């Protein structure tokens, strides 16, 4: 803990001259910052290629299908955007939590909680006109996810429970609860003998309106981008954001400065959960079936967005605006993955495995990024400093880690 504070102190001390001095490093560093995670994805995909080869499939045909399926045309781009939406919303939430020094692994559960809450809103208020009901289901989702996030937040703040563990447990609880609801209280009564875990077709008044143009793009895309902008303002342009980041940067110093640290932890996880919860609502009311449906278990509904959103957030350097392109990229991986799987006739589980490898490599590359940047600057300007964004990312995750281990 003390060494980390020292590290942080020296890092911020080094930032000072950096901001005044413009050097060649400031030109090299951003490219290094981009090249490293992209390189990590390339390495991960090469491992995927080895996997494909052992399965007896041609990786070149596979990856061609992946790129074509993800970015090959307007429909593909629209599908990629739709897949990117939950990643963006969860990722933005992750930015808020991690910046406040809290590791939120509970995106999966928060998505489910949001989906359940918004579904209940739509069932209860089915007759409310569309112009009111659409915002209502979105708010309902945010509240559901927010509560699901606030619980581990409160447990961490007031009982010292490690939030990594509690959020994972909240995921398991939410998944089973969803399964219970879809077999019992919320089940589709019309489905007859074949019991699919799904609700009835929810009211048309809650359908997210399609955007002009001939694609499947709907309002959710705009909402997700809007939330990213709002989160950026919250984190970097508001007093609350300053407090959350201060707590994330150094909880003890914030406490001495009179900031309510415990409240901030709960707020950060509640906001984080609210974003994921909204993703849950978007997944239900922007889906083609307009039902809450869990194909082959809860992860069939969330599509692991709760985990992938974390990667998108890290890829975007924990900055909400940068998560927009990052999640678009990962959305492309997912839509392209489906195309790859269909082209090569391999089981869909391949995408999950590939996904895991990408997570592992992107996370592993993050510290390398900071190190390379420091190196690039040392070469470029003859010493001193690292980019403040890189340091912020590194410290945010580091603090989160040390906080959680203390918890």
């Amino acid at each position, binding site marked *: *803990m003390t*060494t980390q504070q020292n*590290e942080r102190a020296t890092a911020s001390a080094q930032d000072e001259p950096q901001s005044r001095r413009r050097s060649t490093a400031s030109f090299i560093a951003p490219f290094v910052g981009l090249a490293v995670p992209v390189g990590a994805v390339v390495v991960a995909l090469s491992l995927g290629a080895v*996997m494909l080869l052992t*399965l007896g499939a041609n990786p070149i045909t596979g990856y061609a299908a992946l790129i074509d399926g993800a970015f090959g045309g307007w429909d593909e781009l629209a599908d990629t955007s739709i897949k990117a939406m939950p990643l963006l919303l969860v990722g933005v939430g992750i930015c808020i939590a991690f910046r406040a020094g809290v*590791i939120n*692994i509970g995106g999966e559960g928060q998505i489910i909680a949001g989906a359940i809450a918004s579904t209940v809103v739509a069932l209860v208020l089915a007759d409310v006109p569309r112009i009111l009901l659409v915002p209502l289901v979105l708010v309902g989702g945010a509240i559901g996810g927010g509560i699901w996030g606030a619980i581990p937040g409160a*447990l961490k703040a007031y*009982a*010292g*429970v*490690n939030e*990594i*563990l*509690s959020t*994972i*447990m*909240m995921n*398991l*609880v939410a998944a*089973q*609860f969803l*399964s*219970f609801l879809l*077999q*019992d209280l919320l*089940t589709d009564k019309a489905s007859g003998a074949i019991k699919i875990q799904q609700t009835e077709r929810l009211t048309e008044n809650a359908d997210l309106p399609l955007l002009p143009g001939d694609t499947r793009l709907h309002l959710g895309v705009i909402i997700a981008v809007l939330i990213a902008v709002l989160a950026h303002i919250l984190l970097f342009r508001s007093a609350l954001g300053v407090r959350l980041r201060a707590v994330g940067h150094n909880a003890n110093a914030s406490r001495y400065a009179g900031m309510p640290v415990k409240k901030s932890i709960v707020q950060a996880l509640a906001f984080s959960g609210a974003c994921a919860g909204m993703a849950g609502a978007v997944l239900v009311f922007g889906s083609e079936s307009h039902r809450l449906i869990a194909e*082959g*278990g809860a992860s069939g509904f969330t599509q*692991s967005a709760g*985990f992938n959103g*974390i990667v998108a957030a*890290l890829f975007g350097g924990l900055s909400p605006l940068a998560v927009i392109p990052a999640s678009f990229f990962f959305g492309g991986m997912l839509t392209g993955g489906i195309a790859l799987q269909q082209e090569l006739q*391999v*089981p869909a*589980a*391949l*995408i*999950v*495995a*590939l*996904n*895991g*490898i990408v*997570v*592992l*490599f992107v*996370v*592993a*590359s*993050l*510290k*390398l990024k900071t190190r390379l940047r420091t190196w690039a600057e040392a070469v470029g300007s003859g010493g001193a400093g690292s980019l403040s964004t890189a340091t912020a990312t590194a410290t945010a*995750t580091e603090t*989160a*880690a*040390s906080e*959680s*281990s203390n*918890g």
Partner: protein
Amino acid sequence: MGDFFTISVLVATLASGIRLATPFLLAGLGETIGQRSGVLNLGVEGVMLLGAFSAYYVTLESGSAVYGILGAIVVGLVMGLIYAFVTLIMHAEQGISGIGVYLFGLGFTDLLFQKNVGTPKPIRGLGEVNIPLLSDIPKVGEILFQHSVPVYFAFALVPLVWFMINKTTFGLNIRAVGETPEAADTLGVSVNMTRLATMLIGSTMASLAGAALALEVGIFQQNLTSGQGFIAIALVYFGAWRSYGVMLGALLFGIVQATVLQLKTLGIVEGANSSLMAMAPAVLTIVVLVIVSRRVAAPGALTRPFDRSA
């Protein structure tokens, strides 16, 4: 409910509770060793799945569970090496890289299963070994001494792990690098080599936990472990990073699981309500964490990578 409280059902539930505690115990002990050295491996669930599949598949192909277990050990060592590379050399965030291992294990085992096995084929797991004399004791014998080898192995490891951590030089090194790696380093203890060793041990034990599970149920299916690896990590906190505490936690969760299963089998809980019952272990974990969190201190350097230049 009355059907549940008969002697024979209770004895059967306790016996199956001990059997079900075994994967928790193996994975939890492995994770304990790792965390005592300062490394949080959140990928236990993924490694368990990989271990379970390799044990299942090798047993299916070779016809011998012994080869299956050997396969699981190899897989565990490989995953340990990968995780050590990611955390010790790349200094990756441990709370998240483990999720990568989990997703990889989840997808990869499902992929291999669909590709190489397809329809579920049962395997002949390890038979029960009755301990002579002791297993003849009425009731007690049935609960404690009529199990398969992994069960005895897991429980025998409890004192061994305690001894290793507390009474050997290696254990002293583990604790030193887990509390204050800088101090250990100055005294000539290699922080990363010690952590590499604990990673390999922990990962192998997680893999064996999966193998024990697969050989016990005699089948593999997608997401066979269904969150048990994550619960095993929580058990380390529950047990306050001590092997006997982890054993108590594992037994508690094993018995809870056995009870849930028994209630289902007896038809006391059915249909949708069984999903509700399946929430029990996770809810219990949260409750337990609330109770223990303020009372025990984690290893000082947990999740903190060691960098000599820092």
